[in-house]
């Protein structure tokens, strides 16, 4: 039977942050995730490393946490963080009176908000509307959510951490009011097994309620859905926030080659409710075009949605009213020792959440090691020598991107693959510059079970063509190397393309419609993937 001292449930930012902290303090820990890492909220948000400006007025505590953690994350996760800085922009539609309130709140909390002229702002960001009224610079930054999650895992692994994906928790086992283990189910194979453990930490985000239910405990998490849209190119190189009380569609965030606009907020029943619809997209566009007048002429890439877990002791508090601060719930108070839930919070403060939770767990375990997660970088920088080497093997614009994603150790492994077989230098994904060697490296990881898992690790298929070409190449390459996870290649095609389709369906007009016709033309028209699937399903 599998054993660990601590089992962390939930492979989002909070969970991996806890895993890392535990492992760095010498605790034997394993993380269980129901799908792929970062599947939940951690990959379904703007990717904003808050300066805190957004919370300064309404939630000073949250604002303060943000600015402090912002500084820490830039240090430890510098490959995940793009230091874009941000603007807060008051438009002609926004209440003038809010501006001084906001400035005051920022000052109180310690968030630098430097005024610049509209002309200067537009010189720096020429796409901004000419009608805007006021602009302030803040130290916002952009985080690549997937990458941060993965690099936390890479760091945890260095300290012996283990991860199991596509694994659902189906039961919590206790004896004498003490946790002794859990029952898990591999969702790909159906296999059921047990893990013996002393402690369970639930960082299951929107699913925290469901996990707690397994132990007969009530944790009230209200899933709140937010929809976001991604644009095909960098509309802005800086984060642009609306200077008004927090509302829908307030924020534009650049991420590498794309821009994300979000978000919305609506209470939903199920944490799985992550399918956006066309109306939400149109609403976002309407709001966004106040900041960027040409917004509707920009190419959309996809729409996506996630649920943010809003915790409240009061089951009736909803939406933005409920606190975004986090809570640590020690269920010893509910009669079960060895079970903690952590709820609420936001990505920016994941590390702090991890620290607080780990402090509590370590108290129980009598582990005295200090927390070092704020001090040690997640991954080692690639040395200049290694980068020089990488530049010899990667195609143009590929080396730095790959180094950022992979970190030093994995980068070396990828280069070795390229050295052994030069054709591995070829690009599987041309839109996002991902080589065959990197795709294979990602496919070989124990947590990869389908092409989408490879995508999340590499950005393959996340560019302009949304998989129109790389689907075929990646299935072929992965299969040719015996890495296809025992799956039928037609199933691999279907899974990946369906995943891409989910984000395309709500924005099916303009150039997105054209891309869809191309994609269907290739996979259905030419390669008859749907015919093969239908034949098999008989």
């Amino acid at each position, binding site marked *: 039977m599998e054993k660990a001292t601590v089992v962390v449930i939930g492979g989002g930012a909070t969970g991996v942050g806890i895993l890392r902290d535990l492992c760095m303090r010498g605790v034997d820990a394993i993380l269980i995730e129901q799908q792929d890492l970062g599947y939940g909220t951690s990959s379904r948000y703007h990717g904003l490393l808050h300066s805190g400006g957004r919370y300064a007025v309404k939630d000073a505590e949250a604002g303060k946490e943000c600015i402090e953690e912002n500084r820490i994350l830039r240090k430890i996760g510098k490959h995940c963080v793009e230091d874009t800085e941000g603007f807060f922009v008051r438009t002609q539609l926004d209440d003038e009176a809010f501006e001084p309130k906001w400035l005051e709140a920022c000052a109180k909390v310690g968030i630098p908000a430097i005024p610049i002229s509209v002309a200067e702002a537009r010189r720096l960001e020429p796409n901004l509307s000419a009608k805007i009224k006021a602009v302030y610079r803040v130290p916002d930054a952009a985080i690549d959510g997937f990458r941060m999650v993965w690099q936390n895992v890479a760091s945890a692994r260095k300290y012996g951490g283990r991860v199991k994906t596509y694994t659902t928790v189906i039961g919590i086992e206790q004896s004498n009011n003490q946790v002794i283990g859990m029952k898990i189910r591999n969702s790909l194979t159906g296999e059921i097994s047990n893990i013996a453990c002393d402690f369970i930490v639930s960082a299951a985000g929107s699913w925290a309620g469901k996990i707690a239910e397994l132990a007969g405990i009530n944790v009230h998490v209200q899933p709140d859905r937010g929809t976001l849209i991604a644009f095909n*190119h*960098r509309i802005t190189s800086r984060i642009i926030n609306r200077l008004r009380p927090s509302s829908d569609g307030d924020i534009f965030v650049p991420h590498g080659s794309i821009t994300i606009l979000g978000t919305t907020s609506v209470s939903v029943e199920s944490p799985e409710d992550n399918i956006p619809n066309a109306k939400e997209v149109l609403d976002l566009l309407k709001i966004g075009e106040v900041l960027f007048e040409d917004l509707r002429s920009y190419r959309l890439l996809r729409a996506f949605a996630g649920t943010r877990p809003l915790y409240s002791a009061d089951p009736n508090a909803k939406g933005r009213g409920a606190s975004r601060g986090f809570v640590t719930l020690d269920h010893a108070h509910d009669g079960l020792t060895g079970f903690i839930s952590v709820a609420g919070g936001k990505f920016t403060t994941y590390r702090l959440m991890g620290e607080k939770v780990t402090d509590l767990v370590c108290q129980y375990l009598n582990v005295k090691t200090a927390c070092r997660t704020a001090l040690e970088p997640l991954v080692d920088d690639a040395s200049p020598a290694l980068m020089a080497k990488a530049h010899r093997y990667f195609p*143009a614009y590929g080396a730095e*991107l790959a180094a950022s994603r992979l970190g030093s150790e994995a980068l070396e492994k990828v280069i070795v693959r390229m050295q052994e077989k030069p054709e591995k230098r070829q690009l599987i994904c041309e839109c996002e510059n991902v080589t065959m060697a990197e795709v294979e490296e990602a496919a070989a990881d124990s947590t990869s079970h389908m092409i989408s898992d490879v995508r999340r690790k590499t950005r393959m298929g996340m560019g302009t063509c949304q998989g129109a070409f790389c689907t075929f190449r990646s299935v072929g390459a992965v299969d040719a190397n015996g890495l296809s996870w025992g799956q039928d290649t037609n199933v691999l095609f279907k899974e990946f393309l369906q995943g891409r389709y989910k984000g395309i369906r709500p924005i099916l007009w303009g150039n997105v419609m054209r891309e869809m016709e191309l994609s269907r033309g290739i996979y259905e028209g030419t390669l008859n993937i749907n015919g093969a699937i239908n034949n098999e399903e008989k």
Partner: protein
Amino acid sequence: MKKHFNNPDSCTACTVCVAHCPVSAATNKFRGPKMVGPTLERMRLSEEDVEPSLEYCSNCKNCDMSCPSGVPISTLNMLARANYYKTRKQSKRDYILSHGEQAAKMASMLPFGAAIANLGMSMSRGIMKQIGISDKAPLPPYASTSFIKQFKALRQQSYPDKVVFYPGCFINYNDPGVGMDFVAVMQANQYEVIVESDLVCCGSPLVVNGFLDEAEANAKTNIQILKKWTDQGIPVITCCTSCGLMLKQEYQELFHIEGVEEYAQHLYDAGEFLLELYDKGRLNTKFGALNEQYLYHAPCHLRAQGMGLPSLELLGLIPGLEVKNADAGCCGISGNYGFKEDKYDIAMKIGAPLFQKIKESGLSTVVSECGTCRLQIGHGAQVKTLHPMTLVRKSYEANGQ
């Protein structure tokens, strides 16, 4: 600035441009228009790096023409190239090839300057090869008297209808006869031709080697001079299709110059202008019979202008004249691309199907509007070449016009 339909954001990564790129067909070193253009453009907005095969793009515009999405692929390449040179210096070779106007001007100013320069050029091919200019490529000799000098010496008949002629460097310094033929044709149509001697190089050879700021300066100079006339509704005519493309289209795609959309509306290719006169019933149709046979080559930069092949259609009005479209793709030279030592073989490979077709036709002369195309065809197929205006003039004169 007018919103042209060209939009880099529309790329669907379909690869049609890759299938139609003549350079990609000739060499596997070039990573192709899709990659080097719109795909890496997305990367360029967020990162600094260099794509080494960017230098292989010849700016022939075949990618733009084949694109179903209206992506200005070649423009993206040229802008990327210019950006590259913001922090680096062009080679001496590229400088020389881009600044042909300067050398030509000097040669034309001195007595016997052209002859001396030509002698010098032919003797120094070995040295030129050292700095990277192919010793095999058909570098054009200077004419003994420039077009502008010849024009100034000419007594034109004055007419109320006028056009401004933009000769461009090649006609002015290397092939002035074409310019004179054009003037004669316009006169036969009762048009007076105006020539402004302060006009400068259109900038096309500057753009391809990354001298974008200089090209912009030239653009501003030219627009300022030409706008005087276009603002009065007087058309500006080009006989060189690369100059035409640059003046009317690339000035808009590459730069943001005040008034350029308005001025571009009055720019015409010579053949196009005469055909429009024909549509209006204004063309002198007293063509004399020319019982001759030619092959016609459509310059890529003409096809890219979206007006078909007007000179070929115009020649169709001349009785007895048989002109067949070679329809064999790019000749390979694309401006000064084919003069480069490291690109000469590629250029010749690209033009090979055209040369083959010419050979198979058995015809001894090929007609084309573009000066460098004529050089390349003359060199690659060992035939004589003519500008369509020369035939039109010949036809008029055959009928006593």
